[in-house]
């Protein structure tokens, strides 16, 4: 009997201990989270401090923008085209049911330009550019290249981080505009699979349903998308843990958190635009 009681007691304390452990784990996750947020905030403040302090690295910003844009252009163009085409084909049956087939260009244009093209472009950008920045800076950190810059009296934060964040902020909106245009062309092809619409008529119909309040906010938010992808990639890379596995982690979490940031910003942006519109 006593034995039974003892084992029961032991089980009980084991469960209590486990509870303690999960509680500690939870607290640790929570403190880690807030620590991460505070470090990221500090990083952002440092960016703004350095970005407005001369000397400016214009040449490097342009070089980075070129590399970033050049790298992701083919991917953005192909996905833009396919998205335009696919959404057109998918929407047609519904519109035909309502006898509203002629609305097809306008509807696709609104949904592409308002939401799909910017967000898809930004996600691709996070996957391609965010991970690239994260991995590049992380491997520079691990192989002491960032330290080497620092000891030669050059500010690596300014040279590496500020330029990349600015380049990402400038480049993504341009890519997004390109994606808009190409997706409309994809949509034109999609419409012409079943109907016969001239390019001119198609764009006329498409632009009739678009207004300034469609174009501007969608362009505006891509600056924030680009900024956050650049910022998170740089933050993860620059603060990478020593060792080669740190590089993989930095690249991976740049994409994960970059994509998450895009959706969060998108959600905030849509609230703001809908408030302003009514």
């Amino acid at each position: 009997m006593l034995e039974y009681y003892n084992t029961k007691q032991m089980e009980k304390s084991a469960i209590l201990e486990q509870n303690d452990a999960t509680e500690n784990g939870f607290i640790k996750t929570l403190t880690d989270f807030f620590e991460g947020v505070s470090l990221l905030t500090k990083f952002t403040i440092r960016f703004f401090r350095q970005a407005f302090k001369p000397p400016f690295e214009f040449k490097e910003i342009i070089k980075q923008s070129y590399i970033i844009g050049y790298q992701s252009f083919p991917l953005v163009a192909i996905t833009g085209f396919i998205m335009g085409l696919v959404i057109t084909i998918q929407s047609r049956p519904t519109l035909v049911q309502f006898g509203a087939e002629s609305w097809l260009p306008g509807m696709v244009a609104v949904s592409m330009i308002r939401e799909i093209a910017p967000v898809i472009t930004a996600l691709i950008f996070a996957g391609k550019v965010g991970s690239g920045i994260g991995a590049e800076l992380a491997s520079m950190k691990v192989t002491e290249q960032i330290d080497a810059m620092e000891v030669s009296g050059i500010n690596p934060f300014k040279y590496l981080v500020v330029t990349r964040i600015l380049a990402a902020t400038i480049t993504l909106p341009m890519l997004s505009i390109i994606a808009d245009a190409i997706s409309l062309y994809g949509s034109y092809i999609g419409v012409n699979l079943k109907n016969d619409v001239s390019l001119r008529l198609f764009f006329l119909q498409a632009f009739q349903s678009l207004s300034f309040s469609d174009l501007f906010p969608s362009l505006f938010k891509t600056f924030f998308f680009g900024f956050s992808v650049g910022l998170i990639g740089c933050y993860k890379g620059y603060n990478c843990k020593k060792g080669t596995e740190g590089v993989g982690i930095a690249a991976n979490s740049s994409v994960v958190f970059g994509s998450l940031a895009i959706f969060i910003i998108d959600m905030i942006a849509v609230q703001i635009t809908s408030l302003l519109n009514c």
Partner: protein
Amino acid sequence: METSIVKIEHLNKSFGNNIVLADMNLVVNKSENLVVLGKSGSGKSVLIKCLIGLLKPDDGNIILLGKDITKLNDDELNLLRKKVGFLFQSAALYDSMTVRENLEFPLRGEKAICKEEIDALVIEALRNVGLENAINKMPSELSGGMRKRVGLARTLILKPEIILYDEPTTGLDPITAKEISHLILDIQKKYNAAAIIITHDVECARITANRMIIIKEGKTLIEGTFKELSEDTDEWIHSFFQ
């Protein structure tokens, strides 16, 4: 007149519970090669990283070229760093740049020099390490010894007053290691620069040292010339020289 280029007093540095440097003292005189010997993990790299301001010491004074580096702001520190060369254990060449661009990099922002002068400096620095031919190569195309030498050329380009070498000969074959050691000696003569040389390589120490110290448990255990230390009767010290 002050003859010491570096003066470290009561330096303490720990990472969490890991006490790496405890009350470390060190002096480097003008145009002197000081060799620092110590077991792996004894904090040699940490020592010179504190000296150049890559790591913040917990406590103590670090006087580098007459300035207390713990009291400088970022701009002043960067200015001071231009007078100090640092050769990393891994050479730390910029992977995305050619050898030429690697060497030009430390000269960025020096407004007073024109393109031709930069070219001349690059060629001169490469010639000093015997690698003029590699000027347009990428770091990935170089062997370990060549990387070390390019790293050295990059630290020489600013004509530093003191050079910090972190294990310049580790990972090289004995012949190349010897070449690098002699190179260090040549550089001392040519540039009249002081140096701290961290090494495990007794041969390198023999060739380059004017004076040596051995660190153990975060502080200087013994100090002297190569001859004095290599003839020391203490077994632990003696084991370094076998």
